[in-house]
C-alpha cells in the first residue's frame, strides 16, 4: 500500500476498506484508550489545522461559539464519523495497540515517534512509516516541543553557569549530540544538530526541517485543566456510539467551558 497516495479522508477510508480484507487484520485503524491517546492527540487535529485556533478557543470559552461552529473541528468530527467503522473504538490499552500493530492485527495506529522503543521491542519485520491525519486534505504531521529545560534563576551563580555549560555541551559537542540523537531519540531543534536516527524519528525530523508541521494546541495554555479526563470520557462515549458527533461537540463545549472557568 502506497501511503503517500492517501491525501484525503476519503482516500483513507478506501485504504481502510482494502486493508480490512487482508488476512489477520481485525481493524484497519487502532486508537489506544488512555486519555491522551483517545482524546488529546486525535482532537488536536481539529484545532491544529485551523489558522486561528487560540481566538476560536477564547470565543468558545466566553460562550460565543461552540465546537460545531469551528469549521476545522466540525470537519474533523465528520472525518472521524467516516473512519469510525474501521477503528477498534479506542478499546485497547497502549500495550495492546502496539503489539496489535506489530502482530498485524491493526494496519494503522494513531501514535507518535515515542512509540519507537516499544515497536523495537516487538521486532517488526515489515516496513512502516508515518502519515498525517488527512482531515480536510491536511498533509502536515503534528509536531511540537514535548518538554523544556530551564535554568533555575534562584540557584547560585556558579550553579547557573554550570547548568548553561551542560546545555551547551549537550547540544554542540559530539558526545552530547550522540546522546540526544541516539539514546534519547530527540528530534533536533537547531540547524546543524544531529537528529534522531530511529525510523519514526527520521520522518519527524524531515517534517520539522521542511516546516511541514502543525502545532500541538494542547501544549499551549489553550486546553483547560482536566479536559484530558473529561474529553477522553466523552470520546469513549462517542466511540461506543452512545452519543453522535453533534452531541459530542455540544457536550465537549459545555465541559470545556466548565473546566476553563475554575
Amino acid at each position, binding site marked *: 500500500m502506497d501511503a503517500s497516495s492517501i491525501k484525503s479522508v476519503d482516500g483513507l477510508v478506501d485504504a481502510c476498506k482494502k486493508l480490512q480484507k487482508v488476512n489477520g487484520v481485525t481493524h484497519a485503524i487502532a486508537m489506544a484508550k488512555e486519555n491522551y491517546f483517545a482524546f488529546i492527540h486525535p482532537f488536536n487535529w481539529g484545532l491544529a489545522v485551523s489558522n486561528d485556533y487560540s481566538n476560536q478557543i477564547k470565543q468558545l470559552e466566553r460562550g460565543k461559539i461552540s465546537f460545531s461552529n469551528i469549521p476545522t473541528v466540525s470537519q474533523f468530527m465528520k472525518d472521524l464519523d467516516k473512519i469510525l467503522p474501521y477503528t477498534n473504538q479506542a478499546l485497547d490499552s497502549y500495550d495492546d495497540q502496539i503489539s496489535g500493530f506489530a502482530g498485524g492485527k491493526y494496519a494503522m495506529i494513531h501514535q507518535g515517534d515515542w512509540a519507537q522503543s516499544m515497536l523495537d521491542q516487538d521486532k517488526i519485520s515489515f516496513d512502516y512509516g508515518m502519515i498525517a491525519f488527512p482531515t480536510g486534505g491536511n498533509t502536515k504531521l503534528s509536531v511540537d516541543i514535548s518538554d523544556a529545560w530551564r535554568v533555575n534563576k534562584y540557584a547560585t551563580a556558579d550553579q547557573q553557569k554550570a547548568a548553561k555549560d551542560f546545555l551547551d555541551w549537550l547540544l554542540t559537542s559530539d558526545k552530547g549530540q550522540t546522546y540526544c540523537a541516539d539514546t534519547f531519540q530527540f528530534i533536533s531543534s537547531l540547524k546543524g544538530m544531529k537528529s534522531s536516527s530511529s525510523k519514526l524519528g527520521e520522518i519527524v525530523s524531515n517534517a520539522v526541517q521542511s516546516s511541514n508541521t502543525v502545532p500541538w494546541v494542547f501544549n499551549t495554555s489553550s486546553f483547560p*485543566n482536566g479536559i484530558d*479526563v473529561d474529553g477522553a470520557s466523552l470520546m*469513549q*462515549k462517542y466511540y*461506543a456510539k452512545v452519543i453522535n458527533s453533534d452531541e459530542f461537540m455540544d457536550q465537549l463545549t459545555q465541559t470545556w467551558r466548565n473546566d476553563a472557568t*475554575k
Partner: protein
Amino acid sequence: MKPHALHKNLYFWLFLIPALFFFINVVIIPFILGIVYSFTNWNGFQFLNSKFIGTYNYKQAFSDKAFLSSMGLTFEYAIITVILVNIIGFFLALLVTRKFKSSHALRAVFFMPNLIGGLLLGFIWQFIFSKFMVFIGQSLKISSLSFNWLNEPNSAFWSLVIVSTWQMAGYVMIIYIAGLQSIPRDVLEAAQIDGANSMQRLRHIVLPLMMPSFTVNLFIVLSNAFKQYDTNLSLTNGGPYGTTQLLAMNIYQTAFSHNNYAVAQAKAVIFFLIIMVVTLLQVHFTSKREVEA
C-alpha cells in the same frame, strides 16, 4: 508521687509519645489544615496569599454533577458490597467451623485474597474480565459471557463488586469464625436437647450472639467500601466513559487533573462527614441488638 508510680508514668509516656507524635503530625494536623483550606481559595501550593471565601468551595462541590453521581454510585456499591461480603463471609465461616479434615487449610485459602493489595488485584482481575472472559466464552460457545466485561457500564460495576467481595470475604470470615467459636457450647446443646433443629438454632441462638461480630464486620466493610480507590483505579479507572467513578477517584481527579485543590479539599471534608455519619449510625443500631448468652 511515690518513686514507683513516677516510674510507671514515665514508661507510659515513653511508649506513647512516638506513636502520638506521628499520629498528630500525619493525621490530626493535616486534617485540621484541610478543613481550614477548604474555606479558602488555596491554589494547592502556597497558602500564603489565599483568601477566606466561606462556603464557596462547598457550593461548587454540590453543584458538580460528577461528584453527585459518584456519591450515588458509591452508596450503591457500598450497600451491595456490604451485603454480599457479609453473607458470603458468614457462610464461609459456618463451612470452615464444621469438623472436617481440610477446614484449617481452607481458612488460609479463603483468607489469601485479602493479602494481595487492591492495586495488584485490580490488574489481575482486569486481565480476567477483559481477555479471559472472552476466551472462556468463545471456547465454551457461551456468547452471552464472551465480551469484555469492563467495556459496558453495568458489567464493569459488577466486576468491581466481584473483586471487592473476593478480597474482603476472607477477612470477615476470620472475624465470624472467632465469633462462632465464642458461642458457649452448653447453650447450643441445651437448645438441641430441647428439639431445635439447626436452622432454628442458627436463627435464635447463633445470630443474636454473633451481633458483636456483625457490628465489627459491617463497620469495616462499610468504611472500606466507601473509601475504595486502588482497585477502582487499576480495574476500571472510572470505567467505560466515567460510569464507574467512585467518590475517592472523583476527589483525586478534581485535585490533580482539574488542578482544583480547594474544591477537592471541600469534597474531602464532605466525604469524611458522610462516612462518619453512616458508620456511626450503623454501629449504633447494631450495638443495640447485641445480647449476652
